[in-house]
């Protein structure tokens, strides 16, 4: 079975290009806009798109994404409705889609049902920020069976021996958390990220994505030296917060800026 994430990252590697992965919170400011945002971001050059599933207790997120999640929940966004939106997106776009969800919404949906429904609607990957490898086995087996890629995170605090364990449970790519901290916009990027990405490279042949705290095209270019994909969340979500009525134009332009910075 072909996964869109593999196809995308393999092709980019051949072309010697870096992937740009924007994150938005699904349902912020509403799900109709989310569908349009995804299509527009794909047109603007996003290689893979990460959709955040809102959860009332976003403990790994900084204030920008916390507020976005809050706005989304106030709109009545739920996981089933997000899957409906994925279906709509898939009518016209084949951009790889990754859901980022805390564990409880998936658990309450039912792990088995969720994995099946996600694959059926066209979701390619899944990131669960509060599910370390020790707790992931059930979800991992179900995901492997259905061809949904469970993408694992590694952090600057992850020891080398632990990292070797973690990457074994990752599919599609390995998500390197660039900073010791929550998501958010940061002025300085972590100059030591090469230590972490270097260790991951030694441990696996999977592509490497870097995220958390990457907020400008300059920072993205800087990070790109050490990885295959750059993930940007809060900087994009912030624009949606500031321009709810004109989000599609502004986000498209921002995505194009990031993509061209990575191409240069």
């Amino acid at each position, binding site marked *: 079975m072909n996964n869109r994430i593999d196809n995308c990252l393999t092709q980019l590697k051949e072309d010697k290009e870096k992937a740009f992965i924007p994150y938005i919170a699904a349902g912020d400011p509403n799900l109709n806009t989310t569908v349009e945002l995804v299509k527009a971001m794909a047109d603007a050059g996003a290689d893979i798109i990460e959709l955040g599933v809102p*959860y*009332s*207790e*976003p*403990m*790994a*997120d*900084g*204030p920008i994404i*916390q507020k976005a999640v*809050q706005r989304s*929940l106030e709109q009545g966004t*739920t*996981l*089933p409705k997000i899957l409906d939106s994925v279906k709509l997106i898939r009518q016209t776009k084949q951009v790889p889609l990754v859901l980022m969800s*805390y*564990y*409880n*919404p*998936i*658990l*309450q*949906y039912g792990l088995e049902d969720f994995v099946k429904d996600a694959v059926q609607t066209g979701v390619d990957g899944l990131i669960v*920020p*509060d*599910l*370390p490898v*020790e*707790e992931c086995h059930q979800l991992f087996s179900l995901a492997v069976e259905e061809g949904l890629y469970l993408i*694992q*995170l*590694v*952090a*600057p*605090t*992850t*020891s080398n021996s*632990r990292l070797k364990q*973690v990457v074994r449970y990752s599919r599609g790519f390995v998500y390197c*958390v660039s900073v*010791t*901290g*929550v998501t958010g916009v940061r002025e300085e990027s972590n100059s030591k990220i090469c230590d972490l990405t270097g260790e991951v490279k030694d441990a696996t042949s999977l592509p490497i994505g870097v995220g958390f705290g990457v907020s400008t095209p300059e920072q993205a270019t800087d990070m790109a030296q050490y990885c295959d994909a750059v993930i940007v969340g809060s900087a994009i979500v912030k624009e949606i917060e500031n321009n709810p009525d004109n989000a599609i134009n502004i986000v498209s332009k921002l995505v194009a800026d990031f993509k061209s910075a990575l191409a240069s």
Partner: protein
Amino acid sequence: MVQIPDEHGYFGNYGGRFVPETLMPALIELNQSYQMVKKDEKFQNELKYYLSKYVGRKSPLYFAQGLTEYCSGAKIYLKREDLNHTGAHKINNTIGQLLLAKKMGKRRVIAETGAGQHGVATATAAALFGFECTVYMGKEDVRRQALNVFRMKLLGAEVVAVDSGSCTLKDAMNEAIRDWVANVENTYYCIGSVAGPHPYPEIVRDFQSVIGHEAREQILEETGRLPDYVVACVGGGSNAMGMFYPFLEDQQVKMVGVEAAGYGLDSGKHCATLTKGKPGVLQGSYSYLLQDEHGQVVPVHSISAGLDYPGVGPEHSYLKDINRVDYTSVDDNEAVKAFQLLCKTDGIIPALESAHAIAETVKLASRLNDNQIVIVNLSGRGDKDVNSMAEIMGVEA
């Protein structure tokens, strides 16, 4: 005694470690350090020294003559955790955890607090052992527990008012976790309840078990027998776990955990997690949880800030499922009445949290006869609640 949790931090189906990868190495390190001090005689002696000379243990087991007469049923004994230094059971745990943090070489300590008792207890132990201290507290709780906020500041702690979600205990805990994610290398996170990821439920239970161990010895000494019931209030569940744990193997001792029914179990605004919730993941562990069908945590309410929490410690979920502990609930009005009752019958002003346990004890003892014994954990004193009570009673404090 059965060894729970297992090596992965599970009590039956409940517990575990549901945290960002960034924190996993810290939790593994914490568990290794804790398992070492648990068996280390020198550490345990040091802990005993501070509990005795600084906290003022043992706390008395007091025969509540007035309340017993009022109920004209079972004999009621109060485990007087309200007489500890700082006025609640919380200090048993913070002394233990900060001694551990010292051993681990941490310089800074953070904590979440609801009623402020755990915040005060953490700030106190931080001052005692020389830690830098930051306490996260929901904005709503900062308002209703102003006295404790000032106490923490006097003790040298920074108090951060958390302005997200429902602005109560769970939001304070989210913010404390975020701080820990960012500062995990030099910071010790001192969790105040038997909740959170493994090994916290075990650590906090062990440090609080001094309550039940003492109570068991004291009742045997005074009456020559074990109690028929032990009763404690349950928010996250630390005072209850500390009271229950040493009695778990005594099959003849029945146990009652009292949750906060807030405006009433059918109002949708309560904290009766074990009565009305279903299992889910919150703040690092799998346990009963008040949530909607999509797994979003629902707004909860209790008059008592310390019980105002949508989750509960995983060991309580386990004890519920194996039917070892009976979990029931008491609403705001019943708690307020019990608060006033104990003031009059025995001259003791209880914390509003503990007043929930008193209310259930009154119901229970009234049904029993005078050959029977009920021990209730009076987990804290009510000084912090007098302003709220004056507001409720419509008088000036």
